[in-house]
């Protein structure tokens, strides 16, 4: 079987799993998760095969694996869809396959497979736990099978997106994921907050998607194709696009399309100003969060802009001033990075902190792309995927452990004030309770905060910073550095609050380590969280530089036409990144090493703290600016005026007119003429009938006599003719 065939096959198993589970194995939990995980494993296997094959090839960028089939005859030409594995999609495939598999496995434990069914458990609510001979234990998720079906579909979407060789199929996978994120965030649909979050996520991303679709349409209109290679790998087309003017003055066609597509990314990867849905998405089960925020969906956004980078950067060559699109990206990315990091400082919910950090890390990547640091962005995408998945999963593990504790203390029945198992201020001292989780979380955290030399995050961040510095985008550089500092700080804060110090609640005391199915994925991922960085160590790096050639740079860089040369090594960004990381960690530890229920930063920061805590009032802002006006508009204008007055009014007018016309017709045409004629005919017929009924005796043979008489008449007439 050729590699191309394998690529075609990659997305299929999850899809099949989705249908299998929904249609057949729904009743049986074990079977369902076997099917789901099996599908993930299969895709993983195929992905790995493809990946190995891909790294085996010299100059994969020039001649990647690709195959396509004609799908839709469009007038003259046929729109063909296909698969494409070039270095970028190869590495993406690599981390997607790994993380997806890990998340699948993790979900088994997270949803308490094998535990008894809870007494109060209802579909649509998180399991409340069951009482098993006396003391209460966690109970299995009521909609266990459905969860696997959904994430299987989700995985299908992601794989489709990664292997697709044109924007349309990419968009398809993109939208499938949008749907799945809606379904999964609202997985516990009985919680109003979950419902709201789901709708919010859906609509917010939809805004971006609409623009993206516009961009795709515009692109197709301009070039007549959506195939990546046909567009991105012929410079004259890009050149022509870049030079062609667009509807918006002062913006080239390429720029316009790029911006539209980028808005899609903004929606998908939760960049400012469309970031609001991501934190709320934490309402979903933790594996979902990991799925959405680490492995797949948000990465998809970045992946897309990476994919389209040649188009976005059309008319820009290395070292030149940025074009419009890139400027916008750089600005939004950098701003989001800083902005989200600041919010993350004050969040209580362990997952929300991670969510905001995700936003800011994505901001990093976007910013990196904005300044043309293509490889760095891709690199950070990969590493971030690993350690963020790790963080989410281990946070999920923490929450699970806390829930265990909560169950233990509250005995299942949630009476009075319920201890939120996600609030970090309810935790503390979990280091000894759940050692594996602690270590893995620590690794992930260090990687996130870019702990020097060993962690993956350090290398990728450092590369971005180096790029920013080396290419003289000082503003971006500073912003990102600050963001990195904050990142390190809130990461340490999180670790300290969660694991170090003393338990702040009884629940925390009784928290316990989780089952193997949850811990093993953590370990696997933590390995990657460290090792993933080593493939991208720049040359000229003091000491380590020589050990590993910067393979990643070579490999992924090959995706582009003109190979981006590595930025000249410079000590400043290196020192900066080391310093900010260590300083941030240290500060975080100092600030929170003996924190009580109350956040020690609240008093010193004062007003600012509340501002941050309430996320710069963005939700309120949107609510005030968009949602309520929209409602008022709908109520006042659309319903009261448009619907009631205009449309109904028109309808009533028409109806009255028709009625009038009808009555005219009736009185002056129908009654006299038509009916008159009808009645006349009827009366005539009737009178004839009166005459003729004498004939109808009901005697068949009499009728026959008449018939025969007529026939005979005919004969007789004939005879007369012939006889005379």
């Amino acid at each position, binding site marked *: 079987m050729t590699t191309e065939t394998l690529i075609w096959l990659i997305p299929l198993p999850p899809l099949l799993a989705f249908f299998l589970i929904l249609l057949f194995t729904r009743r049986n939990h074990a079977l369902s998760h076997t099917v789901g995980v099996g599908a993930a494993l299969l895709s993983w296997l195929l992905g790995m095969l493809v990946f190995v094959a891909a790294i085996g090839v010299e100059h994969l960028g020039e001649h990647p694996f690709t195959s396509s089939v004609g799908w839709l005859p469009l007038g003259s030409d046929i729109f063909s869809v296909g698969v494409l594995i070039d270095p970028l999609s190869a590495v993406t495939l690599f981390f997607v396959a790994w993380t997806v598999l890990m998340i699948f496995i993790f979900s088994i434990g997270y949803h308490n497979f094998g535990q008894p069914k809870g007494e109060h458990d209802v579909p649509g609510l998180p399991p409340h736990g069951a009482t098993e001979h006396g003391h209460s234990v966690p109970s299995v998720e009521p909609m266990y099978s459905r969860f696997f079906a959904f994430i299987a579909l989700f995985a299908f979407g992601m794989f489709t997106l990664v292997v697709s060789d044109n924007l349309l199929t990419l968009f398809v996978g993109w939208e499938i994921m949008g749907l799945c994120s809606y379904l999964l965030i609202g997985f516990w649909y009985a919680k109003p907050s979950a419902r709201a979050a789901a709708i919010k996520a859906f609509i917010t991303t939809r805004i971006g998607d609409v623009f993206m679709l516009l961009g795709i349409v515009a692109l197709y209109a301009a070039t007549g194709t959506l195939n990546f290679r046909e567009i991105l790998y012929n410079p004259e087309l890009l050149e022509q696009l870049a030079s062609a003017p667009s509807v918006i003055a002062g913006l080239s066609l390429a720029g316009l399309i790029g911006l539209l597509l980028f808005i899609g990314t903004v929606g998908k990867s939760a960049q400012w100003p469309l970031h609001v849905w991501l934190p709320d998405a934490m309402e979903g089960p933790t594996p979902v969060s990991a799925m959405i925020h680490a492995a797949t969906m948000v990465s998809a956004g970045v992946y897309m802009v990476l994919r389209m980078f040649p188009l976005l950067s059309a008319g820009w060559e290395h070292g030149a001033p940025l074009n419009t699109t890139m400027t916008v990206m750089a600005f939004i990315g950098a701003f989001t990075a800083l902005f989200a990091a600041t919010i993350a400082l004050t969040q209580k919910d362990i997952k929300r902190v991670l969510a905001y950090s995700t936003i800011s890390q994505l901001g990093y990547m976007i910013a990196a792309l904005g300044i043309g640091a293509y490889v760095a962005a891709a690199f950070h995408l990969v590493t971030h995927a690993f350690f963020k998945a790790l963080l989410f999963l281990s946070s999920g593990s923490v929450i699970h452990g806390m829930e265990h504790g909560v169950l233990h203390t509250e005995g299942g029945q949630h009476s009075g004030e319920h201890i939120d198992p996600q609030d970090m201020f309810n935790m503390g001292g979990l280091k000894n309770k759940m050692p594996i989780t602690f270590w893995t979380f620590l690794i992930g955290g260090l990687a996130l905060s870019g702990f020097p030399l060993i962690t993956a995050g350090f290398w990728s961040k450092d590369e971005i910073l180096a790029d920013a510095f080396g290419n003289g985008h000082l503003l971006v550089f500073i912003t990102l550095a600050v963001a990195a500092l904050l990142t390190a700080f809130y990461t340490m804060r999180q670790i300290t609050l969660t694991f170090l110090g003393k338990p702040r609640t009884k629940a925390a005391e009784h928290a316990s380590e989780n089952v193997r199915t949850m811990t093993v994925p953590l370990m696997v991922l933590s390995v990657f969280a460290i090792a993933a960085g080593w493939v991208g160590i720049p040359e000229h790096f003091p000491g380590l530089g020589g050990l590993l050639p910067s393979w990643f740079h070579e490999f992924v860089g090959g995706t582009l036409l003109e190979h981006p040369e590595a930025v000249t090594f410079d000590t400043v960004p290196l020192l900066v990144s080391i310093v900010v990381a260590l300083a941030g960690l240290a500060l975080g530890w100092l600030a929170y090493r003996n924190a009580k229920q109350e956040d020690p930063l609240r008093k010193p920061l004062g007003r600012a703290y509340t501002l941050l805590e309430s996320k710069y009032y963005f939700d309120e802002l949107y609510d005030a600016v968009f949602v309520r006006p929209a409602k008022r508009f709908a109520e006042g204008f659309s319903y009261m005026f448009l619907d009631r007055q205009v449309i109904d009014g028109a309808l009533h007018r028409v109806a009255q007119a028709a009625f009038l016309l009808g009555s005219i017709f009736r009185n002056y045409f129908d009654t006299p003429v038509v009916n008159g004629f009808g009645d006349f005919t009827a009366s005539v017929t009737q009178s004839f009938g009166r005459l003729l009924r004498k004939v109808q005796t009901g*005697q068949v*043979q009499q009728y026959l006599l008449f018939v025969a008489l007529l026939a005979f008449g005919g004969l007789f007439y004939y005879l007369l003719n012939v006889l005379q």
Partner: protein
Amino acid sequence: MIPLSWYLYLSAGLFGLGLYGVLARKNAIAILMGVELMLNAVNINIVAFWRYLTPENMSGQAFAVMVFAVAAAEVAVGLALVISIYRRRKTVDANEINLMKW
């Protein structure tokens, strides 16, 4: 040798008798018999014409076969009707079966 006219006259006579039966008999079944006679007369005609005028192609016999089929169908349905009428009205007298009169 027999001239065509004989057959035709025979069939004409048979037809007349059948017609008489149909027109004059009281009993519904007898009427059906008369109809059969007429059909047979027609068949004789058809076959005679086939034999005398167009023996080369078989259309005449084919038509005769069709007439057979029609006759069979007609008798089946007709007798069924007669039987069911008899069930309801205890008579097969065509004079008494006159629900349709005014």
